């Protein structure tokens, strides 16, 4: 299913719970797609606001991911660094439809621009 505004990237249960997968966009950063302990799905540019760590490789806990490089915590819903750290990673809107994960087309293409 490929509608104008949304890109279908697969089944939600292909993403490990409290884990992440990536979506590759040619010519741009990867997108990290996360699934939380309670089954919600989020997407962020796969790039930590600190020094570009791959957030998709971090540990997901609660509604945040800990960056694998220096352990900054990034809120999945807003892309903002939590706690003392300051910075923000672009958020890609996501919606779930019948178990499929759809990500916002425009934001995805922007990531590649």
């Amino acid at each position, binding site marked *: 299913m490929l509608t104008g505004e949304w890109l279908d990237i697969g089944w939600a249960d292909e993403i490990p719970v409290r884990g992440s997968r990536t979506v590759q966009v040619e010519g741009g950063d990867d997108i990290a797609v996360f699934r939380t302990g309670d089954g919600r799905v989020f997407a962020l540019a*796969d790039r930590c606001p600190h020094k570009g760590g791959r957030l998709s490789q971090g540990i997901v*806990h609660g509604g945040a991911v800990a960056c694998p490089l220096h352990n900054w915590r990034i809120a999945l819903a807003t892309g903002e660094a939590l706690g003392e750290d300051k910075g923000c990673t672009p958020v890609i809107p996501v919606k779930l439809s019948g178990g499929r994960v759809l990500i916002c087309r425009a934001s995805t293409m922007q990531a590649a621009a």
Partner: protein
Amino acid sequence: MHHQSHPAAALEREHLVVIGNGMAGCRAIEELIARDPSRYRVTIFGAEPHVNYNRIMLSPVLAGEKSFDEIVINDRQWYAANGIELVTSDPVLAIDRTARTVTAQSGRTVGYDRLLIATGSDPFIIPVPGKDLPGVITFRDMADVDHMLAAAGKGGDAVVIGGGLLGLEAAHGLTLRGMKVTVIHLMPTLMERQLDEAAGWLLKSALEARGQTILTQANTAEIVGTEAVEGVRLKDGTLIPASLVVMAVGIRPSVALARDAGLAVGRGIQVDDHMVTSDPAILAVGECVEHDGQVYGLVAPLWDMCRALADGLVGSHSGYRGSVTSTKLKVAGLDVFSAGDFSGTDGAEDIVLRDASRGIYKRVVVKDDRIVGAVLYGDTGDGGWYFDLLKRGEDIGAIRDMLIFGQAFASGGGVADPKAAVAALSDTAEICGCNGVTKGQVVACIDAGGHSLDAVRAGCKASASCGSCTGIVETLLAITLGDAVEAGPRTMCNCTSFGHDDVRREIVAQQMRSIPEVMQKLHWATPDGCSSCRPALNYYLLCALPGEYVDDQQSRFVNERMHANIQKDGTYSVVPRMWGGLTTPRELRAIADVVEKYDAPMVKVTGGQRLDIFGIKKEDLPAVWADLNAAGMVSGHAYGKSLRTVKTCVGSEWCRFGTQDSTGLGVKIERMTWGSWMPHKFKIAVSGCPRNCAEATIKDFGVVCVDSGYELSVGGNGGIKVRATDFLCKVATEAEAMHYCAAFIQLYREEARYLERTAPWIERVGVDYIRARIADDAEGRDALAGRFHVAQQFLQDDPWAARAAGAEREQHAPMARFTPHAVPA
């Protein structure tokens, strides 16, 4: 069911026809009658043969707690008394909006002035082979319950597909009716839409204790059987025998009629605030509607909708504005409540209370001093109060500290200061429920010199087991000592009031088996921990339950998940194992080939005498490992909290100073110790003489060969803080050297804190302690080494081989790929 004649006056009234004799349809009419009993002439069509009954109560009927008669809401008398014509067992099949008529299955056609669609929902049937076999049923109406009861009468096995509210109520009823029930749930936790992981885990344990089998993350492949259901096969091949299969995987608004009639339909029949559809003559209410993008699956919103609908029908428009919902599980003895958003959205803060001895878990989610969600397990008494505060958006800032203790405590007696509340407790009040310690005993313990939390825990055991009374003990310390309270050892992280040693001790003492269990029993303050406690707990459980504990991959740092070393650009470096630092032409060729084939920008000899291949892409890792495996090389664990390398010198075989075969011993030690997960990384070296070319005295375990044997030393470190090893003892043979090494590693594995290298550990416990355990206590040493070898049976398993063979392929492959200009708009 034939047409009744009405008094002349009635004929002049507008005719309101209702499709659906369910909870919303009838409630709407009740509301209408309460406002104006004479305004409409009403005809209700129902597909079911029954009068209006309380669908929610089907669960107690199934469980044998209620009879059908007890759940009837309106009996025939009510329809008659209000002049309502009820047509049962005759579903409406078509709506003709031009002629303003509806036609039912019996062929009967009736005209309407206003039409109300209240068709509810249809259970969703997962499209698997065998779904139409006799014995596969849903759980939606009285007919389904009758089917289940008939099947249960024959006993045997039942499978319930779906671990949500409905599925669990079905499972409960069938269990009470004597069937052996297995619940198959796709998600990792039960009722995941209503409960968080912690509460879901508690619920699962409680249901298992009642004899149900709960399979989570289980995906149904097919329902097997020839004449009737015989079982359910899962995607992983498991076959579960069953003579009854209940599908309770969800519901879909029943919109077929409306869609065929050309009404605007999204997920449900779209209505405005007055429940009017895209056709002004047609209204809709209940689970079949979509209002403001929302569809509902609970009754509370229906009541609000019915009020707005009735107001609209009598011309005093009030309007429906959407509903916030809460859920309860109606299974006796299992109190579960949830409301609002408990998913921990941005800026929201969790207040968690866990009382393991009473099986209680409460979590209130607060954002900007307002409650936005709540999950309660075990004690749901305050559910209504939290829900009310949530709906009203009440500012709870003033009672925040007390909130989690419930209404009685937070607003009762004007005690808004926790210190005053604790001070007011009598000396005989029990503080610690686990160990039965009273306030008087705690204070006496403090007076006797217990000036820290830890000292109190050691002195009188208060707060030493589950920790739920930690806050009260700390308050008592503050009241009794003021500023003289001594800080105890650091807690593991902000998720718990316990330190590493306490957690480890309790994991063993209480025989805990999973991360959620530890979090519940030890009163974790967060729902699923953080990036510091989760890896620690995973390690502690792994160490405590060799061969049994199932590693939680999502609680491991990326390097241990990917079995390679993440670099700052997101690529990985790969270090194949070279036993004792020895290599062969074949290995060197394989490494050279990998470097060229995968375009690795750099290869480097590491400090531990291995070759490190840099710049490998995540996607290429499995192929790289396959190539290295083919040349006989396995993972070097250069990325893990585990045995890294055994560094050796050439020793007596080549060196003119060499006293023993240090290379040979190094290879043997590495073969014995590789694969072992530890609190932190661990390095070993073996030097062939005291010239110590392998730098054995700055390793975690060092061997220096001398003419008369092997000098063993421990706790060295070459990192930020250089530390030379402490001498442990001297042994005469290679076999002894290896035996002591195994015992020492196991002691470190069992007693050091996660992420504590051997150097700080030994400084903390003292080298005398280590000598006493390893050098002086022969029996203890044998036991430690024995446990090490048991664990190694399970741990010596090359993680690369499995990945190269395709395991967890998804970790390496992206979910999707897009090429911007190739994406059709």
